[in-house]
């Protein structure tokens, strides 16, 4: 497809959709699928057919809209007509039985019981860039993506910009890696662009191993073309002709949709040889990981693609200099790539104007834990943690209070309530003893025991350690044993000392990020909730009442003497 053909295709698809009076979108991403939303889609199809509405109603499968906890989600988009303005209705908790009523309600009053209020802060406080088309397009139809502007940024870049301009645009946008580290994306691109090599590769990191995280999965499942487009733009910018999306095998739907999307885009001439009729060719393949957290670490991931054991190696050399099969390799996270097309399309200045401090754009979080609304959210950088937890998340359950927010998963830390007014920025979160991470955000209330939380994450690191280096392999086991001892009320102050000493050893001497950050949850909970550790050790009391076998309830302030 040439740029002109792409524009025509978008117009054609737009006109085609306008021919329908109503478009019904049924979420068929993993969470809603788990409540059989595929059957609901079928039921809509059947009902529409039975009622002879196939000419005026289009039923389509779409990706995730974010409010997974309220699924299955369905939206209905109705065209304006002589009597009514155009409107979009959103329904939650839709069941098979409700479908006939929903079909009957088309053009009439909404089904009130199922209506989902989209004026609530959960929706209005979000700012969608990465997820702008998630839940809107059918991830299995290329035409849907084209209708909303898919691949326009790529063809624009190929025909009107040279690679250095693209790198410069990303540099000026201020985009930073969304895989956890926050490394400036433009700088990484320019390093790979400058690296010398007969061949270069682009890798999209879709390993997403953090427990409870599903941001990248959702993007890959709901809008795969967005990720592919970002990779192709990157390939053009750094001089690569081949790319790999590395996805864990536990994400079969993401794998299926990515593979389908690649095939569709290749057939349309939007990937593969001579993209858009230009001289640029870029081929993308999917590689499956066996689901080890450490395979998200870039050097382990590369080893895994090469068919070797997925364990990290010391850097330098960085993948930018020597990566896949020894060639210069650009590796970015799924969400990072999903930001590329809008930046190229709307300009670096537009993106740089969003956010605060040295953190531009938006961030997708998987909001979970002890708040009323959980799900996938995208918020502008600089929003406060309190706004996320109280406005978007709806605050704690009745009768409870928020105690802390955990970000960064097993590599991050717990930020206490008192600091919730701080903005979501890379540097601020590090100052607070946590990290931005890849997007896990867990709210904790008075029923969460911070020692237990630290122990949970240590158990994760212990079982996910690759075993290559000694401090991580053995140190995490020893730290986990000490934390267990504290939870069981068997520990002494000497054990606490030893725990702190091991935190320092493992953090400072481990080979890769897994070991280097494994102590973070312990360090941050010791920093803010030391009294909880002391309650367990000196008073055999678990203030949150979580650790079984210990007394529960608060220890009176004066009893706690450090």
């Amino acid at each position, binding site marked *: 497809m040439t740029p002109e053909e792409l524009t025509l295709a978008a117009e054609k698809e737009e006109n085609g959709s306008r021919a329908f009076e109503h478009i019904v979108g049924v979420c068929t991403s993993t969470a809603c699928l788990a409540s059989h939303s595929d059957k609901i889609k079928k039921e809509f199809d059947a009902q529409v057919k039975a009622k002879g509405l196939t000419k005026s109603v289009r039923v389509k499968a779409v990706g995730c809209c974010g409010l997974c906890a309220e699924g299955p989600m369905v939206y209905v988009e109705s065209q304006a007509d002589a009597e009514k303005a155009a409107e979009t209705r959103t329904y939650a908790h839709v069941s098979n039985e409700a479908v006939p009523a929903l079909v009957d309600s088309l053009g009439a009053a909404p089904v009130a019981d199922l209506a989902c209020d989209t004026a609530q802060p959960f929706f209005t406080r979000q700012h969608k860039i990465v997820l702008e088309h998630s839940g809107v397009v059918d991830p299995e139809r290329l035409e849907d993506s084209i209708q909303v502007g898919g691949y326009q940024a790529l063809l624009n870049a190929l025909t009107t910009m040279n690679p250095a301009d693209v790198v410069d645009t990303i540099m000026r946008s201020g985009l930073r890696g969304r895989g956890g580290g926050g490394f400036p994306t433009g700088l990484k691109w320019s390093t790979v662009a400058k690296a*010398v*090599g*007969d*061949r270069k590769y682009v890798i999209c990191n879709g390993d997403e191993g953090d427990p409870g995280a599903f941001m990248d999965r959702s993007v890959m499942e709901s809008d795969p073309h967005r990720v592919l487009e970002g990779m192709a733009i990157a390939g053009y910018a750094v001089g690569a002709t081949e790319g790999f999306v590395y996805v864990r095998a536990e994400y079969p739907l993401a794998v299926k949709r990515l593979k389908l999307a690649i095939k569709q885009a290749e057939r349309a001439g939007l990937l593969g040889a001579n993209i858009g009729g230009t001289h640029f060719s870029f081929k993308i393949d999917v590689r499956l990981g066996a689901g*080890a957290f*450490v395979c998200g670490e870039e050097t382990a991931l590369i080893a895994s693609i090469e068919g070797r*054991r997925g364990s990290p*190696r*010391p850097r*330098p050399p960085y993948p930018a200099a*020597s990566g896949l*099969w*020894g*060639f*210069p390799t650009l590796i970015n996270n799924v969400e990072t790539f999903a930001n590329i097309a809008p930046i190229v399309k709307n300009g670096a200045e537009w993106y740089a104007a969003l956010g605060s401090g040295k953190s531009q754009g938006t961030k997708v979080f998987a909001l979970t834990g002890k708040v009323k609304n959980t799900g996938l959210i995208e918020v502008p950088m600089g929003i406060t943690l309190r706004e996320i937890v109280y406005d978007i998340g709806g605050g704690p359950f009745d009768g409870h209070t928020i105690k802390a927010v955990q970000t960064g998963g097993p590599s991050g830390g717990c930020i206490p309530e008192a600091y919730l007014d701080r903005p979501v920025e890379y540097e601020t979160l590090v100052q607070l003893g946590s990290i931005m991470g890849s997007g896990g955000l867990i709210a904790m209330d008075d029923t969460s025991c911070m020692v237990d939380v630290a122990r949970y994450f240590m158990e994760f690191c*212990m*079982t*996910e*350690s*690759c*075993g*290559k*280096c*000694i*401090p991580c*392999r*053995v*140190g*995490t*086991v*020893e730290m986990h*044993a000490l934390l267990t001892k504290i939870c069981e009320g068997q520990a002494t102050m000497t054990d606490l000392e*030893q725990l702190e*000493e*091991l935190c320092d*050893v493992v953090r*400072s*001497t*481990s*080979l890769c990020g897994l070991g280097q950050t494994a102590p973070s949850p312990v360090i941050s909970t010791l920093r803010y909730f030391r009294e909880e550790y002391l309650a367990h050790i000196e008073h055999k009391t678990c203030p949150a009442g979580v650790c079984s076998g210990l007394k529960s309830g608060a220890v009176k302030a004066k009893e706690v003497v450090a």
Partner: protein
Amino acid sequence: MSPTMTEATVVTLKIDDREISARSDQTVLEVAWENDVFVPALCHYEGLGDVGACRLCLVEIKGSPKLTPACAIKVVQDMEVITLSERLQKYRRSIIELLFAERNHICSVCVSNGHCELQWLAQKLGVDHIRYPYLYPKVSVDASHERFALDHNRCILCARCVRACDEVEGAHVWDLLGRGVDTRLISDLGTPWGESETCTTCGKCVHICPTGALFEKGKSVAEMVHARPRFAAMARVRNNSGR
């Protein structure tokens, strides 16, 4: 091939305030050892590829906030390396202690007693007791090979045997299975060593093992003396590089 080969140049650097000259293709560890500077190491073996796994060779490099494995970093002009500090010694002792706590290292009944690199380093670093609880995993001994045996109790997972067999002998009998503290050394695809179809019985792995994990059958306590193979010299002869 892709990696651009650049000619080695001569550089000068400082190790512990001593001015030293070296070739730019040498690692900090090689240069330190060449100049009789003590840097502990277990996973490094001259003539094998380095993996940076044991973390004992960590040094401080001026300007770098993180500690760096000396075996995995090449020297550069004007580099300033510190190999000895209270902090480094503390970490080195902790790592050795973690190794002792991980499996079963009862030196008094070990074939390598007195000829073991782990034992020697522990003494050299002043590790006289282990503060961490012993993990005592249940691991086996593979005595199925006609001439050699593998005692997992003594294995520190340095992977020297893996690399010697793969890189020098070209047989790739050994590899690692599992992860974390459950990682185990395996022969072929997890079959007993004696049934290995790839083992050439060359003995390189046995003589390169830093501990008593791999040993010759028939050796009793303290009798397993390693004849350390000189891989680097072998490679030089083979490539006739004569450097």
